[in-house]
Every structure is written in C-alpha cells, then in structure tokens.
C-alpha cells in the first residue's frame, strides 16, 4: 500500500516533468510572444511575487481579495443552500412546487447572467452574486438528494423511544446527510472558484486574480497571464485538498471516503 503510493507519486512527478519539458520545447520551437514557455512563466511569476503588478498591487493582495470574494459567495451559498435543501428534502411537496423554477434556473450557466448583472447590480454584490450562483446549486441539490437515502431503520431506532420529529431531524437525518452536504459543498466551492474570472471580469476594481489575467492579456503580456492562470489552478487544487482532508477527519466513521 505504502509502496504503491510511492510509485504513484514518482510516476506523477515524471509525467509532470515530461509535460513541462514538452511545453518548454514547444515554446522554444515556436518562439512567439503568444506562447510563453515555462521559464517565461516562472520569470513573470517571480516578478509579480517580488514587485507586484504594473499598478503596484502585490500578488498577495490579489490572492487575498479573490479568496475573500470566494469566501463570501460560497458562504452565502452554504447559508442558503443547506437549509433550503433540507427543507425541500424533508417536505417533498415544497420541492415539487419549487421544481418548475429551480430546475431551469439551475441550467443557466453563471456566465449567461453576466450581461444582466452588469446592468442591474454594482459593487461587491456582483462578485457575490456570480460566485453564489455557481456554488449554490451543487450544495442545494446534494443536500436535497441525500435525504431520501437516510436509512429508515435508523429513524425507527429513535422512533421506538418516542422521539419527536425535530429530534429525528437533528439527531438522525442531519448526521446521515452530512457527508452528502459536504460533498455538495466541495463541488460548490470548485464551481464557485471557476466563476472567479467571470465575476472579476465585470467587477469594477482592478484587483483579484481574474482581473490580473485580463490586465496583462490586454497588454499582450501573456507570460504574466499564464502565471496568473497557474496560480488560480494551484489555489483551487489546494482548496479542494483542504476540503478532502477536512472530510476525512470529519467522517472518520465512513470507510468509503468520497472523492
């Protein structure tokens, strides 16, 4: 088992190095400012990290601002998605009557909302709305879909002792669907993170990782844009990893950990 993991990491490293080498080779062969190589990207990244961007905002500021926006949008999505999911799961009539609104809206991509958002709302709420939109539905749907999977025997265990409905919900239903809620939150966080560029494209301020990419793309300094892209990818990966670790700790009782 342990040896297997070692082999996997070595293999992963080899594939990564191979990819970087191919990328660099392609950049050297093409020799175009529109195809920055690995060294250009690393150079751009170092410059950003040391000196900040062309307007003087440090890389850390960009990261912190983007993370704040994500936290706000994702937090709001949890705050609304989990209770609404529970409500719709516990009272199927609520879901049945809301379905005609919820289901079509769910399939409108966040990007499709951008034009109307630009017109209708301003300021921080723009970021909030777009990220919320991305994160909300996975959380709502996972919570909702988890409830019918509560084992009826577990409910009976409590009902035999005369447990009232509220107790059943708090002590049996919620613990049972918690893994599903967490899985939905992890997916929601991922989707919300992917909406960051879209959200920052229309936000007015010049800070944020999405904005950073655009700023340099307009100047055709694509090595800086790629550095920003890589950073977005790595941070997203890190957030996801952190979430999986939290899940593993939290749901030690589950022998199958969702991935």
């Amino acid at each position, binding site marked *: 088992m342990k040896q297997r993991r070692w082999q996997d990491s070595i293999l992963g490293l080899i594939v990564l190095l191979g990819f970087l080498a191919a990328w660099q080779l392609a950049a050297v062969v093409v020799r175009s400012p529109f195809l920055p190589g690995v060294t250009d990207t690393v150079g751009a990244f170092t410059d950003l990290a040391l000196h900040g961007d062309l307007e003087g905002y440090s890389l850390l500021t960009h990261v912190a601002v983007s993370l704040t926006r994500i936290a706000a949008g994702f937090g709001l999505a949890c705050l609304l998605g989990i209770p609404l999911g529970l409500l719709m799961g516990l009272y199927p009539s609520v879901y049945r009557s809301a379905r005609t609104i919820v289901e079509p809206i769910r399939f409108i991509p966040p990007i499709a909302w951008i034009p109307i958002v630009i017109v209708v709302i301003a300021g921080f709420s723009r970021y909030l709305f777009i990220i919320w939109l991305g994160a909300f539905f996975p959380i709502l749907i996972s919570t909702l879909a988890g409830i019918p999977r509560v084992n009826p*025997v*577990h409910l*009976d*265990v*409590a*009902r*035999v*002792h*005369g*447990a*009232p409905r509220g*107790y059943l919900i708090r*002590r*049996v239903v919620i*613990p*049972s669907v*918690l893994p599903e809620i967490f899985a939905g939150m992890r997916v929601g966080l991922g989707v919300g993170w992917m909406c960051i560029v879209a959200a920052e494209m229309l936000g007015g301020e010049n800070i944020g990782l999405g904005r950073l990419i655009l700023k340099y793309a307009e100047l055709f300094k694509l090595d800086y844009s790629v550095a920003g892209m890589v950073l977005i990818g790595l941070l997203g990966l890190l957030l996801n990893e952190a979430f999986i670790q939290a899940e593993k700790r939290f*749901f*030690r*009782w*589950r*022998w199958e950990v969702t991935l």
Partner: protein
Amino acid sequence: MKLIQVEEVSKRFGDLLVLDRVSFSVGDGEFMCICGPTGCGKTTLLRVMAGLIPATMGRVLVDGQPLDPLRHNISFVFQEPSCLPWKTVSGNVRFSLETRSAALRQNLSKADMDERAGRILDFVGLQEFAHYYPHQISAGMKQRVAIARAFVTEPDLLLMDEPFGYLDVQTRYFLEKEILRIWEKLRRTVVFVTHSIEEAVYLSERTMVLTELPARVSATIPVNLPQPRDYDDPSFMDLRRKITDLIKWW
C-alpha cells in the same frame, strides 16, 4: 413491570390483510417467541406492538392502557444492522438513553448516561470496543451493540425481530446463549420473533405459532424445559417436532 395484551389486532396494507384478529398476552418478565412461516406477518405484528405502525383494528395494551411510546418504555432490536454509523459503540448505546430523555423532556445527566452505557457494555463484553465505530467491528458485535442499546433503557417490553437472522451459525449460537444470560440477569419482558423453531424452543418459555398469511394465532405452546437446554435432549426434540408439525404449510 407490565402485562402486555394484544387484542384482536388486524393490519391491512391496501387490499392485503396481513394480521387477522391476533390476540395474545405476554406476562411480566416472560420470554416469548413468535414463530411462523416466512412472510407471514411476524415483523408487521412486532412493528404494531412497538407503535411504529398503527393497527388497522384492535389495540395493544400495557397494563390495561393503550400502548404509547412515550408513556411506556419499549425497545426494539431490528433484524437488519441498525447501529448509527456516525456514532461509536458507546455513542450508539447512549443514543437510546438520549432519545428517551429528549422525548420525555427529562434531563438525564451525561455522567449518568455514561455510567449506564458503561455498565451494559461491560455486561455484554464490549467495554474494550466502546470507542470503535460500527464499521470497525464484526456483524455479531454490531448486533450485540444493538442488544445492549435495547436493554440499557430498562424497557417494559423488549421486541426482537429475528435479531440473529443475518449472522453465521456459530455467532448465532453464541448470541442465543448471551441473550439468555442477559435476560436472566435483567428480567425484562421479551417478545422474540424467529423463523427458526429450534431457536424458539431453545430460548422461550412459551412459543406462539402463527398461520400463514393472513396471520392468525395457530397455537401457543409452553416450553417447560429446564435451562440450560440441550438440542439433543429427547424432550427438546419432541417439542421441536410438535411445533414443526404445527407450522407446516406445505
């Protein structure tokens, strides 16, 4: 402790009549088994007795009063694995105390619950596994947890629905001995459903045989054999044959 009376209980699911005017009573502290052909409504009868589903007609009385999960203290051991997977062994045992105290709006102290759960776990020999999660222990141990969880509330009536049905023969034999030991010590009224005639004769003081669907009471047979019982004893085999003849539906 209490006298349990089942009076003319019928249960109908749509067009299907499952229980047809079933009447019997269980004495205080008695160990009764209910036997019957598969799919004859044994589980349904037990669920009605637990108040988990309402009877279509008839009623269940505890000391002359209609059964109420709040007023009466009932425990149930389910056929299928029923441990809450997110709780440890001791958490599962404490769960029925917590539920009971929440339902009755009493405030059992945490120390009190820990003490009672610890005592029963000790008694069923699971003390060392108190902090394990259900997935870390064997099926037989999980069923012992379910039994401990049922006994810990000191129920007026303990209903067991083929609790050893899913287990292998050795574990089953071991747990049959265990349940007798626990019952002799704690003396609760037990109604134990099984499809195994041998198990009924081995465990019970009295065995009730149900007919095939719709279930009616076919016979009630006293099992006056001294404990511990022996499967090879001629009187054991006689009784087993007698019940087998009653249960035959082929």
